[in-house]
């Protein structure tokens, strides 16, 4: 991100540095999303590394426009919203997406456990778009699900159900997801399907 304001004099500070070099610009992503953007449950920031560039770009656009992250109960979304807006308005969205692509993606340790067999049965409804191995399918704009932050998948499925995501008319893919997720009967179904996704490689 461009540092728009150099530090002005005022009362002199021996310890305040001047402008930051451009190469540090995307370290902002790592602040929340952790080392190599492999996610940080501590502040509920999901793993980004290994995400498809087109998916990352679309979500940043959604955050920037307010198509995602605006409902009152979506507190994590509120934190991302202004960041999306900032990268969009400062023209650094593309650079941020590229930066994520340079990071070393690691498979996160599983945190969600559930009935894998039941989850597998439920996953039948996901296969068409997200693929049998959770590998995703760019031709239908469906991102990979394997090796993501599992707690984040569970949160987002719940968000779709609760109408915290996929309700804005501009988020057409989100609306599709919301329709499908509404077929998951309860919280246990969400946990089970994520537990199954954890087994996909």
């Amino acid at each position, binding site marked *: 991100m461009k540092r728009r304001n150099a*530090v002005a004099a005022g009362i002199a500070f021996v310890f305040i540095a001047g402008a930051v070099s451009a190469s540090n610009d995307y370290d902002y992503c790592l*602040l929340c999303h*952790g*080392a190599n953007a492999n996610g940080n449950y*501590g502040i509920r920031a999901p793993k980004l590394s290994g995400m498809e560039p087109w998916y990352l770009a679309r979500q940043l656009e959604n955050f920037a426009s307010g198509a995602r992250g605006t409902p009152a109960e979506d507190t994590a979304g509120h934190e*991302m919203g*202004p960041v999306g807006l900032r990268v969009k308005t400062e023209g650094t969205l593309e650079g941020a997406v590229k930066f994520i692509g340079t990071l070393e993606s690691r498979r996160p340790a599983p945190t969600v456990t559930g009935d894998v067999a039941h989850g597998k049965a439920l996953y039948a409804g996901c296969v068409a778009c997200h693929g049998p191995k959770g590998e995703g399918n760019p031709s239908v704009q469906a991102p990979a699900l394997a090796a993501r932050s599992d707690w984040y998948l569970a949160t987002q499925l719940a968000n779709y159900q609760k109408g915290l995501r996929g309700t804005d008319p501009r988020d057409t893919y989100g609306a599709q997801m919301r329709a499908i997720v509404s077929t998951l009967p309860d919280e246990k179904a969400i946990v089970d399907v994520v537990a199954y996704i954890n087994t996909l490689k």
Partner: protein
Amino acid sequence: MKRAVSRRDFLHLAGAVGGSTTVFRAAVALGLLPAVAHAERPELATLNKTRKVLILGAGISGLTAAYELSRKGYEVQVLEASFRAGGRNMTVRNGDRIDETGYPQVCNFDKDPDLYFNCGPARIPGHHKALLNYCKELGVELAPFINDNRLAWVQDDAMFGGKPVRAREYMTDSRGFVAELMSKSLTPAAFAAPMTKEDVERLREYLKYLGSLDPSFKYTGSSNAGLAVHDYTSPDVLKKPLDGRELLKSKFMEIMSFGETDDQAAMMMEPVGGMDRVPAGFLRKIGHLVQLESQVQKINVQSKGVEVTYRRNGAYVTAKADYVLNCIPMHLLAGIEHNFPKEFAAGLTAIPRGKLFKIGFQMKERFWEKEGIYGGISWTLQDIQQLWYPAHGINRQKGVMLGAYTFDPNAGEKFARLAPADRFKLAIAQGEKIHPGYGSYVETGVSVAWHQMNHMLGCAAQWDEELWKKWFKTLQTPVGNHYLMGDQVSYHPGWQEGAMASAHHAIADIDARERAAGSVAA
């Protein structure tokens, strides 16, 4: 059947009405006395061997440890992720950058030594010995800080149709109201513990002074509430007491004793010119040891020492040290690659992060002084919760006042979601209920949402009794030669004194280990 009042119940009731001072006095009256304990600044032994220490974070705990260790022969380097040192000790003045992730801001206050805003800590009580000693040692000049001003306002939409009342009126009239009721209902039989008739009489006398009751134990008003008119050429006229039932509608009762709590009671202090004079004092001594813009990405605890990898100018750098003192906020540390034991790592995500939020407004005129308010805090039950009036620069034209300081995480989130201009609008609309015309004085503002600040993403760790019991020892215990520090690893989070206590605890442990290893000068 009449419910018996126990001594404890009575103390709680007295506390709600009279504040902690009353509790203390009542406790003394009933023969119960509190215990006091102090933590001391350790006297480290001078090393006669080389020991390298990496300190992660140049906040108060990191600077304290760096200062102490470097004086005793340790080779110290401090890695700081931000462009500035100080951590949450942050004062902004003309031109300063507020590095919030989504909404970066610049402080546009006029260039003037009195026009600054303490975004983090802003006051020091007289028993915060460690901090006060460092202030003295580092030449940080202190001035009185006014925390409690009975001429400031109390506003709550739940009482008097939202119309503000002076704090002294609320306090005096509510105490009078409750003291009168209590004195009427006191009988020896009302207490669970045996109380003699004489005990009850003493309590009634106590209530009389507590509530400014008249000789017949009725509350008919008190000059403690402020006179109706301050005209000293004619006899005093008392204000008519406010309706007690109306006063009790307000939850202000819960914060009424704020200025009497352990850390908030007079005499409070602040550094002259801004709280960041504290880190500036440290940096005058050890600034050369601090490297900014170095964000830690990986910590590898080894059998001897610790390896740390950080990003600087887009490149990864690895450094090795005998000891690492880690002041990175736990919720951020959780996202860094590490080889900590599972139980320790689990603790890092177990403590919720604070979401405190502040606004500072530069006012074109110190209008509050025309209302007789010189320093102190007005309280409201609205989102902004507090208005602070500066005790420095009295009688000057302009001043920077605090326009919001929220303790409630929901209020913090509500503000943080908005763009700065909308935060100001909301804060001004609420401030108008306390000071009509408030918004017309605002020239410029700054807002600090601590849970969205770069390299912080949180204010004080939100410990509670259960969390302390479950996690504190685990997180405080060193992992090999790696120590977690900061106010987050203290029983006093959110205070610089807590940060210093954690630093003292860690360096005292290192000192003991080095002494045991015989690596210190005799």
